[in-house]
């Protein structure tokens, strides 16, 4: 048994993991990053549209600040988010963009003077300020009051990930590529690292660390139709779940993006609509204003996706060879704009559909896109139940997105969380709490257990085919646990997923070698993916309300009275076929923004008894501070700054808010 020791083991080389590792490294700790693929190929590279941060440089972003970003994010979350975490996030996002600027990201900049843009289907001229010339500009995105999404053309994630990854190289942080953490090493209370499989040689190695950080991204591949990369199988969340101790939060909160190209599901960015693109139905009619007069195509994603599916169900979809869809129209933006600001979109349409989006309509339909749920942590990124285990990025639920995340808030979250959690990881490593006290005997037990599991799969005489099980799971999730959910369909999904889980214990392989073996990988991963799928489906079945992306046709109202809670899923028994669910209340009396109407989507919801009381308190506080500045008012409503690592405390300078 080979053992590798390090201070910080970061599982995942996307934006979140890289930034967390850099943070810990800069504080003097040794970090090792594991990644299934070269880190620059992580799915963060696929983010196109941009990163939200309230810089307020562009004229359409004027007046933006943390407060507006905070409100948009909380409304977007349908009040599922942890509001203190949202505050930490919005306050750090401008710092994150600026750090990335210093590290070389070529953010698009404000060009002073007139320029033509498309707003609400009309070409209009806007005039950028002289004073803002050369500062970082922003585009419009769904669910936001201001143009806040910073971007580099439509290759934002790529530019961010390359700059970040190169910083990791500059800091001499090793990345062990083509390795996979397959189990966490723990003693029931403390996590000490992971058992890691080399995907080329098949060798298992024990990595022992003071702190272990899960930054493995989303689990979109439990669905058949998804914008996610093929490696987004949620293995980080799954191995945390398999400890039986760490919890996953809000797994039923799964986002569907309105514009996956049809039928492949490859994403074309929300920037298409942000920049003025429209959604048209089979009759080429622009239908979103009929449903959402306020925000139209730019309501939050959960709302737009539902409206699209609703419209298709009403028989208004366009009918194509592969089924029904609607159209995305960006022809109105003009060729110059498409070729400059939406070039990945142009490439994708060209290569995968054979259409030119500057002149042709693009067939689109919602596709699974983002996992709001993940490893439940507190605001420091540490698991509340398994010490030494941290999580950040899409894999985590610290919980800033609640039941729906806004476009542009995820890459922002990855970097912000990497910055913040990296500091807390370093604090942890600096304390005696982090001493590696585990016995080699226990490490060996974990190693032998995992080794035996792999041997069992290879030598199995089982008759089940891993690929068949996986495809059935994906079909079930897409058909029964998708945008519109009902008790019956969810129940059927839960039952069949349990059967699949049992079948997955009887997989037989056609190709029986231990080294580099894609079928073996599918086999052990599908066993884990089924557990995640069950957390999603079972959580969705139990949650008898609609909130954000979780929409129950049989319970269409948001129900704050009974369901203003976070779902916590654990998997205590290895042979269990269902997760154990617990719930964590969200306390309205501590909220800066108590539940209300989001400003788009359904207006009826069931109030929580505390909402009115908190509203009244807030009015009172605001009245008593009528002459105070926004910072003082905010601080009186809900303190958060003390929760941030010192390094990232402090205000953000803007054109209208110069710091001395």
């Amino acid at each position: 048994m080979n053992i590798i020791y390090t201070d910080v083991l970061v599982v995942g080389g996307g934006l979140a993991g890289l930034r967390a590792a850099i943070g810990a490294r800069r504080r003097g700790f040794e970090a090792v990053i594991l990644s299934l693929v070269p880190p620059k190929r992580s799915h963060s590279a696929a983010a196109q549209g941009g990163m939200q941060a309230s810089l307020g440089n562009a004229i359409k972003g004027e007046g933006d600040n943390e407060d507006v970003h905070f409100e948009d994010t909380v409304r977007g979350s349908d009040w599922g988010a942890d509001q203190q975490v949202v505050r930490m996030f919005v306050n750090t996002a401008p710092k994150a963009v600026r750090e990335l600027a210093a590290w070389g990201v070529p953010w698009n900049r404000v060009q002073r003077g007139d320029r033509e843009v498309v707003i609400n289907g009309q070409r209009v001229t806007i005039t950028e300020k002289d004073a803002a010339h050369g500062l970082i500009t922003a585009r419009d995105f769904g669910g936001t009051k201001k143009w806040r999404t910073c971007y580099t053309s439509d290759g934002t994630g790529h530019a961010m990930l390359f700059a970040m990854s190169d910083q990791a190289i500059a800091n001499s942080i090793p990345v062990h590529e083509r390795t996979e953490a397959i189990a966490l090493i723990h003693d029931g209370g403390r996590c000490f690292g992971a058992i890691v499989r080399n995907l080329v040689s098949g060798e298992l190695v024990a990595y022992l660390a003071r702190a272990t950080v899960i930054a493995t991204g989303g689990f979109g591949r439990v669905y058949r139709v998804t914008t996610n990369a093929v490696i987004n199988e949620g293995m980080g969340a799954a191995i945390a779940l398999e400890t039986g101790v760490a919890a996953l939060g809000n797994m039923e909160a799964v986002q569907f993006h309105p514009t996956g190209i049809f039928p492949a599901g490859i994403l074309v960015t929300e920037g298409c609509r942000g920049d003025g693109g429209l959604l048209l139905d089979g009759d080429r009619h622009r239908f979103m204003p009929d449903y959402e007069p306020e925000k139209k195509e730019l309501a939050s994603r959960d709302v737009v996706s539902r409206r699209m599916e609703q419209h298709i169900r009403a028989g208004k979809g366009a009918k194509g060879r592969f089924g029904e869809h609607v159209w995305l129209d960006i022809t109105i933006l003009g060729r110059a704009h498409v070729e400059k600001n939406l070039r990945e979109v142009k490439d994708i349409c060209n290569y995968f559909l054979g259409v030119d989006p500057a002149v042709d309509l693009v067939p689109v339909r919602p596709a699974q896109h983002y996992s709001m749920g993940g490893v439940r942590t507190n605001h420091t990124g540490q698991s509340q139940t398994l010490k030494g285990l941290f999580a950040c990025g899409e894999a985590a639920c610290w919980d800033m997105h609640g039941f729906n995340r806004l476009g542009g808030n995820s890459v922002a979250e990855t970097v912000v969380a990497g910055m913040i959690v990296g500091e807390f990881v370093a604090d942890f490593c600096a304390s005696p709490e982090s001493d590696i006290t585990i016995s080699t005997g226990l490490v060996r037990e974990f190693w032998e257990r995992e080794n035996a599991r792999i041997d069992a799969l290879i030598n199995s005489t089982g008759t089940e085919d891993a690929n068949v099980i996986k495809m059935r799971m994906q079909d079930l999730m897409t058909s029964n646990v998708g945008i519109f959910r009902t008790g019956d369909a969810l129940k059927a999904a839960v039952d069949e997923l349990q059967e699949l889980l049992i079948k997955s214990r009887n997989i037989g392989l056609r190709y029986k070698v231990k080294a580099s073996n894609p079928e073996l990988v599918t086999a052990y991963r599908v066993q884990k993916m089924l557990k995640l799928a069950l957390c999603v489906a079972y959580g969705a079945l139990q949650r008898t309300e609609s909130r954000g992306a979780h929409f129950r046709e049989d319970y269409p109202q948001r129900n704050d009275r009974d369901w203003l809670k976070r779902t916590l899923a654990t998997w205590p028994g290895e042979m269990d076929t269902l997760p154990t669910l617990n719930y964590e209340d969200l306390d309205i009396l501590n909220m800066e923004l108590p539940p209300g109407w989001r400003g788009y989507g359904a207006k009826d919801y069931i109030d929580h008894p505390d909402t009115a009381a908190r509203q009244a308190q807030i009015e009172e506080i605001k009245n008593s501070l009528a002459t105070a500045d926004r910072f003082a008012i905010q601080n009186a409503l809900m303190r958060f700054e003390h929760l941030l690592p010192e390094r990232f405390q402090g205000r953000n300078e803007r054109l209208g808010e110069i710091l001395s």
Partner: protein
Amino acid sequence: MSEAGATQHRQLKISILRYNPQDPNSEPHMQTFPLEEADGMTLFIALNEIREKQDASLQFDFVCRAGICGSCGMLINGRPGLACRTLTMHLGEEITLAPLPVFELIGDLSVNTGKWMRAMSERLETWIHTNEAVDLRKMEERMEPQLAEEIYELDRCIECGCCVAACGTARMREDFVGAVGINKIARFKIDPRDKRTDEDFYELVGDDDGVFGCMSLLGCHDVCPKELPLQTQIAFVRRKMVRMGMK
């Protein structure tokens, strides 16, 4: 995709160069898989289907399957390209696939571009070099919008390795940094945030493993899936470096 209905699908013959260096009994050989074409079929779909239905041991790499991440570079009928966004309908009935040359072979179509690229990044120090500390609370440094776009143009490289695989020099000189490397130098050179001087860059690429190794065959330029202006960039860096060399 059953709705395809009446259209008669072609029977493809996909020949793949198989070799698994992990397995002492493995010898490089071509293996041909028959496959019924489907509408909109990409090599991503085709290879997965072959692996699922015909040969579970087949190795290849895909990640984003959308032409963005650069994982799936391979020789498609002898020419480096991204498999995920190659539609079979643009190819003949007989298709040959082979791993990218130059890079360490992992198995079949899978090569270790990650290791090569990391070594290149370490050697060329592909990050902003500066001693200025930034105060993250303060407004960012300004940059001309046009310049930001020019930097992005060169920043679009996805390190897929196609240019290296198409390069005559890279096949002969193990340490040649390739068009990917020279393009990085061009990218950092025009970025005012990077305080490195021409002397510094000369140290990095002013030799035969750098810009003077290029034989101007420009295979790189023709195969770059992101259509980076590699020809112009190599010429640009070479001009600068010649001038440096004469100082």
